[in-house]
């Protein structure tokens, strides 16, 4: 079947196409070149004249599945009670809001034009749950980053001075076993240190038991990811999240990685200075400058937006330290299986609160001061900074200076006065938004057939009506196609589909690393190594998700 999208203004940064009027052809779920469609009468045609066409959006950092999200759901029944979602058309019932039910999350993403989301904190021991929840998230392609860096097997390797090759095998084995597409590290070594009652771990501070530093952990993991040819750089949630003055830690983390590729996630939470009467200030300018200067560094922002949300993180050390801020006052911390941990703390960001208002400014300053949109990504670290449903509002803040300044004039006046935001004139273009939310996200993950509209790409396509109010525009796309099928019309799901799981399979010496891992599991773990590894049948056997394996560098 041939489908034609006629006459839309196309934004396809992967091919340098910036608002040109073009036709797009789709056959069997893929975009086909014009010459392949010439002379063939389309079975279906969509008049897209006056409309904007982009690839489906990709959220490269969103907590949509896994143990801590379900802890958040169980912690906050009131979060759902206020946002019931009735069964409607093809959509099943569910609940919103900050930690929505999986079904509702999938529908709402699709209704905003998103066709993929990546869960950034997959604890290997909890990876099955992450995959089960992502499998129950309709409409979206999914994938995960496996968390390492506080697991005892890895820390023992580092502490014993293991060769890089062994680390590489372990990292590759973990990616295979947990069916992930990248590696994340959270408060390197800190989650483990907290189990030994260490309450803080700076970049060059020793873990009190293993006597290794976060700097060493970061270098070793970044090198492994790089040497294995994993497309996505090491995904780093750094030390000292949320601590005033962590700006210096972040700058040192950037230089400490010695030129290796590194992605700094929710960098807003790591860009705080200690200037001013309240010893809390914006480090956005220095952070943005460091990103601009270091082409090996990418970042997503983790913008906060005002309102009630819940923070769910692997960083049990910092979540415990911040539990007094819980709103409502209830929270969870867990030590998990000699593998990692988690902390779930509900939060209400208030526009009249000095710190929250300045956090809002800092995130926007970073967005606007980082020059290269290919190296900065639009996230709220859903739900930690705000639920993903706020993305259209965030896009408007970036694209519309007068709107931004209007909001700025309503927040805590001291914060606004301390911020340089009012003096920044930049407005993101549609082309730049398409880079941040599509082309750049696909490129940083190594998804060759997503995030663009060239021949051969999967036909994940979003069509919007161009409007001055960009929030309205990005809230309600006219059409969303998933793998070539029309799934959303006028902002409403009309067909429910199930997405794919994106993974990689780096090469490694399985026999060598399993000869170490098997006895380790037998001696110290509470399950067998064979039962830890997630097999393909577990993902694919119910007939919904398909595993898509993307090549690593050097793989055919």
């Amino acid at each position, binding site marked *: 079947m041939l489908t034609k999208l006629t006459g839309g203004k196309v934004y396809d940064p992967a091919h340098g196409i910036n608002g040109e009027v073009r036709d797009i052809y789709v056959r069997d779920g893929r975009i086909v070149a014009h010459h392949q469609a010439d002379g063939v009468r389309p079975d279906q045609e969509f008049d897209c004249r006056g409309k904007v066409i982009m690839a489906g959006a990709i959220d490269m950092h969103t907590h949509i599945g896994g*143990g801590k999200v379900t*802890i958040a*759901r*169980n*912690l*906050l*029944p009131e*979060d*759902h009670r206020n946002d*019931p*979602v009735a*069964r409607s058309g*093809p959509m*099943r*019932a*569910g*609940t919103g809001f900050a930690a*929505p*039910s*999986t*079904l509702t999350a999938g529908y709402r993403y699709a209704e905003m034009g998103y066709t993929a989301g990546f869960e950034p904190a997959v604890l290997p*021991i*909890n990876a*099955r*749950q992450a995959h*089960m929840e992502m499998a*129950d998230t309709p409409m979206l392609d999914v994938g995960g980053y496996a968390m390492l860096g506080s697991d005892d097997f890895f820390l*023992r390797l580092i502490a014993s001075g293991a060769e890089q090759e062994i680390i590489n095998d372990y990292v590759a084995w973990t990616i295979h076993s947990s069916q992930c597409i990248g590696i994340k590290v959270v408060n390197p070594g800190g989650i483990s240190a*907290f*189990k*030994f*009652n260490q309450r803080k771990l700076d970049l060059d501070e020793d873990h009190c038991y293993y006597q290794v530093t976060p700097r060493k952990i970061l270098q070793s993991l970044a090198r492994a990811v790089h040497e294995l040819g994993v497309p996505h750089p090491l995904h780093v949630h750094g030390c000292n999240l949320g601590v005033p003055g962590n700006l210096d830690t972040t700058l040192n983390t950037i230089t400490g990685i010695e030129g290796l590729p590194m992605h700094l996630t929710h960098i807003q939470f790591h860009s705080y200075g200690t200037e001013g009467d309240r010893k809390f200030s914006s480090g956005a300018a220095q952070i943005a400058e460091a990103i601009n200067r270091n082409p090996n560094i990418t970042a997503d922002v983790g913008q906060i937006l005002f309102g009630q949300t819940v923070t769910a993180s692997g960083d049990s050390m910092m979540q*415990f330290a911040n539990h007094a801020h*819980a709103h409502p*006052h*209830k*929270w*969870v*911390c*867990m*030590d*998990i*299986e*000699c*593998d990692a941990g988690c902390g*779930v703390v509900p939060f209400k960001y208030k526009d009249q609160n000095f710190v929250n208002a300045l956090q809002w400014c800092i995130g926007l300053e970073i967005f606007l001061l980082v020059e290269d949109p290919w190296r900065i990504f639009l996230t709220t670290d859903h739900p930690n900074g705000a639920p993903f449903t706020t993305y259209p509002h965030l896009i408007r803040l970036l694209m519309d200076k007068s709107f931004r300044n209007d909001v700025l004039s309503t927040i805590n006046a001291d914060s606004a006065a301390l911020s340089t935001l009012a003096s920044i004139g930049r407005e993101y273009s549609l082309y730049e938004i398409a880079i941040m939310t599509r082309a750049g996200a696909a490129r940083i993950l190594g998804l060759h057939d997503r995030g663009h509209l060239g021949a051969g790409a999967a036909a994940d396509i979003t069509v919007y009506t161009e409007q001055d109010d960009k929030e309205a525009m990005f809230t309600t796309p006219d059409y969303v196609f998933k793998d070539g099928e029309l799934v959303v019309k006028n902002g409403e799901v009309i067909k429910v589909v199930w997405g794919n799981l994106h993974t990689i399979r780096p090469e490694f010496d399985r026999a060598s690393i399993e000869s170490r891992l098997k006895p380790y599991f037998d*001696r*110290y*773990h*509470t*399950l*067998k190594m*064979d*039962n830890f590894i*997630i*097999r393909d*049948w*577990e993902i694919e*056997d*119910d007939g919904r998700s398909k595993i898509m394996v993307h090549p690593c560098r050097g793989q055919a």
Partner: protein
Amino acid sequence: MSETQPKVFDNVPSPFCGIASDDLKITVEGLDVRVVANADTVTRPGFEQPITDTVPRIAGQPATLEQAVARAASLVNDAHLPVFSGFGTDVNETRAALSLIDRCRGVFDQARSGAGLRNLLVLSDSGWMTTTLAEVKNRVDVLVVFGADLEAAFPRFFERFIWVEETLFGAGTGQREIIFIGSAPPPSSAATSPDGREPTLIPCVTEALPQVAAALSALAGGQYLQAASVGGVAVAALQAVVDRLKAASYGVITWAAGQLDFDHAELTVQQLCKAVVALNRATRCAGLPLGGQDGDRTASQVAAWISGYPTRVSYARGFPEYDPFHNDAGKLLSSGEADVLVWVSSLSVTPPPVSGVPTVVIGRSGMCFEREPEVFIPVGVPGIDFAGHMYRCDNVVALPLYQLRESDLPRAADVLKAIERALGGS
């Protein structure tokens, strides 16, 4: 090799015990399953329960699967409020049940939710700090067992997690201290260390557990108690427990909510959780809520991510609503509000409660009934008859379950989907 040679399976995970032992050795000969290594009083009957019924019944009469599905669908379709309970099930079966419940505007409640809620209500009221089994195995130096007979429900707890040969951090497990608050452990309990050290016992009657938990929490929080004894327990003894936990590197307080079988036991659990948080001001300490037998945690986890709520969810108004008190299957049946009961239980042969409403049972073969249900569809067991997944008591580890034998029994998930299809459009 002759055809009668039994098949042998190693490292088999058990869906029946909440601690999910996955080191079982099992032999299968025809339909006969035997646990030949590492069995206990929970896993052995779980695996060895023989297949009895293989043919569905309608009102006691043999029927085809199609007829039974059609009859079940018509009962569900005609019901004003169908209530779904049981839920000794795996992940896919729970998914299929929730899809049907959403479609027919039913209520979801597990047979064991009363016990689970003693923890869940604490989680949603104040949160907690908890740990998981491998952390306990490698780190614990002081274990407080509060009001629980662990071995009755988790016979291998001490063997698998406490008196282990070695730990990651070099500390010998011989020095571990076990403190029971409540009843004495049974004679020849595995709580006694391999070198013969008996656990410390602070005897306390069940009725006094709430007061004692409150006193522990107050003492852990640094409060001074004027009373010399609480609930028949000397405050000095409780202070000694708190002092021991304060001096510990990694203390753990454990309880089994299913065994705290008294009104508002959640308040007792909450006091224990408060004590844990207070102890973490200076050292590390964690709670370990034990439970999850017969897939109870599994059903709750799946419900939480699909509906947003962990149990007792009603779809009667077209969207999920959580009411841990009102949406109690037993209450809805006895009040007459529910007019059909669908009992889904593939792991356990526990039959549905006898009630006055038509009952559909999608149940493990071997289930016996006090009153024959309107529809009975015997099904196979995830982890024996087909593959599946289950959650352990700590809500973190999901284990794969494997097919061990070839039976023709249908899967509960397929039966539930067939019922949903028979209901027609949305």
